[in-house]
């Protein structure tokens, strides 16, 4: 567990006995203390502008060894062997941390997974040796001899599988494995078993980084070119490096940060980068949960589970469009007055929109649309099976969009949501939270934010009335930095994008996803720096992605420490 910094505030807050405890009470995201001028997750230094004095020297932060997750494994074996069987779908699900499934600290290996690796490697190798000549790269066993051909296979396959050239000692060791298998069985079996072993090697399953020493520094290492190539390919594409990255590493074209940026920019133009951005949103915005959500038939008879993939597609098509084909900035993601619909979804929402199966860009009535925040998938995930949930919607804004921490409800408290009552609007029914002092401390952080979404029912459709009364979507967000009153989601979104917390949180979420780890105290300068760059670029997501390849956390690592 290396996320200690993240929850420090929640614990501290509870210890003082509530959620409203003066400035700073909205949660501190960067793990610093909550009493020394760090408020709302934005260090004072950042808002005052100017780099804090301690941001000198190179500070890469923690550099845990990273193991492939299931998506990366399947992508990798496809690129490595052309195998599209997606074997990792049989592996146990990743342990998640901070909402992401690629957190290095959480990805440990149990017997179950080790058995999965063995079974997958056996199947992959068995398939691969069916085309032996391809594996031998032109080596002919009859004329060149078995030993030479085995060596050719190990050298060539090793370079791709380990994502770097093999050291002479490694080739020798693997040759011995081949020889043992060939002696006991035959040459082809030798190749197959050697490959089976290589596909379970730490050099394949993990990104092993030894770095390169730097002058005047014992504890900071520069990433070696092949290591950088892998960092780039797994961050931007979720797979192994392509031929160009390998060539760049081999030819010394990954030595400087500008080289890395150039590659990142090239890679962003590839469809695989889009898939990665989609993967990020699936996790950050909980879009993955759309397909699992269940609704109460009685409350929402019109909700057909078949609509779920369409709701997810709407969100993805919208984000794809904004990020790749339009402005590409944070503001558009929050504010865009349009979405993407097909005929079935238009019917679902009850709007006169596109017909047919294809999704089309569709301008929604004024005041009803605000980027991803008004889309049906998110709003029905952030709802109960039979009604809306201002609490979950408010909590989502606090945790995912502002990177604040909201503590869970206290022990021994009745957390039953109010019964659905056809004569009372939701906000009336949730009144107890603001009346009961044991609830109001925390719920004043969440409910008044969530009430702003009340125009959207429990399955994400617009409504003008609830319980026979016009919807009251007025709300308030309290805090030291992000604060104010608003009416409806577009006004809330406008308030959010004006807050420095929002751009910092977006930076932080990408940081956690890109580097596969929680932000540590040591990362404060890096995060400040990335946030500044993000703001300076007009808050363009593509620029943020490239900036993430330019940070000290990306280009350097710490030398191994400890016993």
């Amino acid at each position, binding site marked *: 567990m290396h996320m200690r910094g993240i929850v420090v505030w929640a614990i501290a807050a509870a210890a003082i006995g509530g959620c409203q405890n003066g400035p700073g009470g909205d949660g501190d995201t960067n793990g610093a203390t909550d009493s020394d001028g760090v408020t709302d997750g934005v260090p004072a230094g950042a808002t005052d502008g100017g780099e804090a004095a301690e941001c000198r020297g190179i500070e890469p932060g923690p550099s845990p060894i990273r193991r492939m997750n299931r998506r990366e494994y399947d992508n990798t074996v496809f690129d490595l062997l052309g195998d599209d069987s997606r074997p990792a779908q049989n592996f146990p699900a990743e*342990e998640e941390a901070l909402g992401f499934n690629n957190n290095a600290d959480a990805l440990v*290996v149990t017997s179950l997974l080790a058995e999965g690796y063995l*079974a997958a490697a056996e199947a992959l190798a068995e398939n691969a040796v069916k085309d032996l000549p391809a594996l031998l790269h032109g080596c002919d066993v009859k004329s060149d001899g078995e030993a030479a051909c085995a060596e050719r296979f190990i050298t060539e396959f090793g370079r791709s599988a380990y994502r770097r050239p093999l050291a002479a000692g490694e080739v020798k060791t693997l040759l011995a494995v081949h020889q043992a298998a060939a002696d006991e069985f035959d040459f082809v079996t030798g190749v197959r078993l050697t490959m*089976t072993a290589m596909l379970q090697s730490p050099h394949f399953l993990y990104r092993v980084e030894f770095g390169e020493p730097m002058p005047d520094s014992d504890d900071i290492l520069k990433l070696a070119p092949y290591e950088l190539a892998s960092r780039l390919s797994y961050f931007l594409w979720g797979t192994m490096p392509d031929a160009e990255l390998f060539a760049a590493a081999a030819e010394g074209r990954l030595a400087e940060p500008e080289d890395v940026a150039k590659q990142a920019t090239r890679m962003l133009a590839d469809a695989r980068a889009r898939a990665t951005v989609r993967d990020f949103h699936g996790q950050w915005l909980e879009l993955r949960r759309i397909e699992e959500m269940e609704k109460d038939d009685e409350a929402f008879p019109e909700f057909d589970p078949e609509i779920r993939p369409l709701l997810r597609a709407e969100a993805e098509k919208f984000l794809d469009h904004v990020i790749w084909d339009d402005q590409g900035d944070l503001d558009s993601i929050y504010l865009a007055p349009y979405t993407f619909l097909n005929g079935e979804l238009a019917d679902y929402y009850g709007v006169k929109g596109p017909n047919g199966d294809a999704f089309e860009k569709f301008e929604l009535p004024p005041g009803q649309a605000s980027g991803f925040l008004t889309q049906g998938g998110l709003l029905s995930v952030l709802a109960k*099976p039979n009604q809306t949930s201002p609490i979950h919607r408010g909590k989502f804004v606090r945790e995912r969009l502002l990177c604040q921490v909201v*503590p869970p409800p206290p022990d021994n408290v*009745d957390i*039953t949501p109010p019964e659905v009552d056809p004569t009372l609007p939701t906000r009336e029914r949730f009144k107890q939270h603001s009346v009961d002092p044991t609830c109001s401390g925390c719920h004043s952080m969440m409910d008044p934010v969530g009430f702003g979404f009340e125009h959207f029912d429990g399955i994400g459709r617009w409504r003008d009335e609830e319980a026979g009364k016009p919807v009251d979507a007025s709300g308030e967000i309290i805090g030291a930095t992000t604060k104010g009153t608003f009416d409806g989601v577009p006004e809330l979104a406008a308030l959010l994008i004006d807050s420095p917390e929002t751009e910092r949180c977006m930076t932080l979420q990408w940081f956690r996803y890109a580097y596969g780890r929680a932000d540590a105290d040591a990362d404060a300068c890096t995060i400040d720096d990335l946030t500044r760059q993000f703001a300076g670029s007009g808050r363009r997501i593509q620029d943020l992605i490239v900036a993430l390849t330019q940070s000290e956390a990306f280009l350097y690592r710490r030398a191994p420490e400890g016993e």
Partner: protein
Amino acid sequence: MIMRSSNFSRRTFLRGAGGACLALPLLDIMHGCDSPGVAALPQQFRGKGGPKRFVVFWTPNGTIMSNWRPTGSPDAFTLPRILAPLDPHKQDIVVLDGVDELSAYKGPGDAHQKGTGQGLTGTELQEGDFAGADGLSAGWADGISVDQAIADAVGNETRFRSLEFGVHVYGANVGSRISYRGPAQPIPPENDPAAAFNRIFGDLESDPEAQKRRIAERRIVLDAVAEDYKRLVPRLGAADKIKLDAHLAAVRDIEMRLDTVGSVGGACQPPVLGEVKDPTKVGNIPATGKLQMDLLAMALACDLTRVASLMWMNSATAKPFPWLDIPEGHHELAHRGDSDLDAQEKLTRINVWYCEQFAYLIERLKSLPEGDGSVLDNTLLIWVNEHQKGNDHDRHEIPYVLAGKAGGAMKPGRWMQVQGDVPHNNLLVGLMNAMGLEATTFGNPKYCTGALSLA
């Protein structure tokens, strides 16, 4: 998803008349028809005609005590509504009434975290960052769980030291794990019956030569893999070292068990799964659970493992029960007041349903002949709940139900009421003793005052 019908079920299977033992030539190399493997077991680990087994059945969010507690006397008792599904098995169960999870009032974590993480470990949780209620937080459990302690004694000759099954266990935190290899070493359950099938039965070969060949190949491969990790580990920093050491241990474990294959025949008849419904869908929970129990039972019958657990959803699960027409989440319902009759009724129905599942597992084990009885007779099965009561998280008088005879070490057919403060650590010791382990304490000794005898 359609299961590939396995070679195992199609070709290997010799369905013997009258359950006669028809072990296959290769597969009984190790154990043989009369289970010499079992005969070679130390007496204390041996049941009647088979080894002793230990199984945990775990459910969340407490029960409704007024509908759970029997009436009558210890030997002549009536099962109330929640336990009524066990009526046909009354002579096979012990309703254990009055044991308190005292340790779970101590240490880091909230009531759910402690109730779950301490249920089988009997020791405080570690400090950590899993957020709990009241601003409390915790890490993983700080000790080995009782199933693993038992597995360390009885699980070394089987293909799997233990098997962990889950039904819709989501997430990876202290509320979604019950089993621990040691401090902060949680074992994730397998939630997918198809994957469980492939793991447990998938690579048994019908052809003895093929089986021998596979083992020989794996020995070469796994040896190379283990060496690879061993070479790398010394070059890593402390945190990475721990991670790769754990990976190496997992590889070694597979390697060590290459030769251990179960004996097929008699009661051991690997199931044909048929269609497996998506185990990630809440609506499929009943179907998933049934398959998991079928696999669990057969893994025991085939002696592929002697220790198993089945975890139903998570601590404080908020999932609804659509198949019972209960749209509210379980945790929400569990938090409603005692006077909310609708909630009490729904919670009762949820627990009745869980009890029906427990009864199904008992039936499965009973239907597997072994010795002159059944696999159930050689098994110690225990139903554990994280709490007694949902709305106040009471961890006193945990509603345990045990089943089986543990090869004669446990006397069933009783409503066993214990008086006063009896810490659940004592029960954990009692379980170990019944399984043949000579333990006198378990978990944090601070909470253990001796063994609760089940004899």
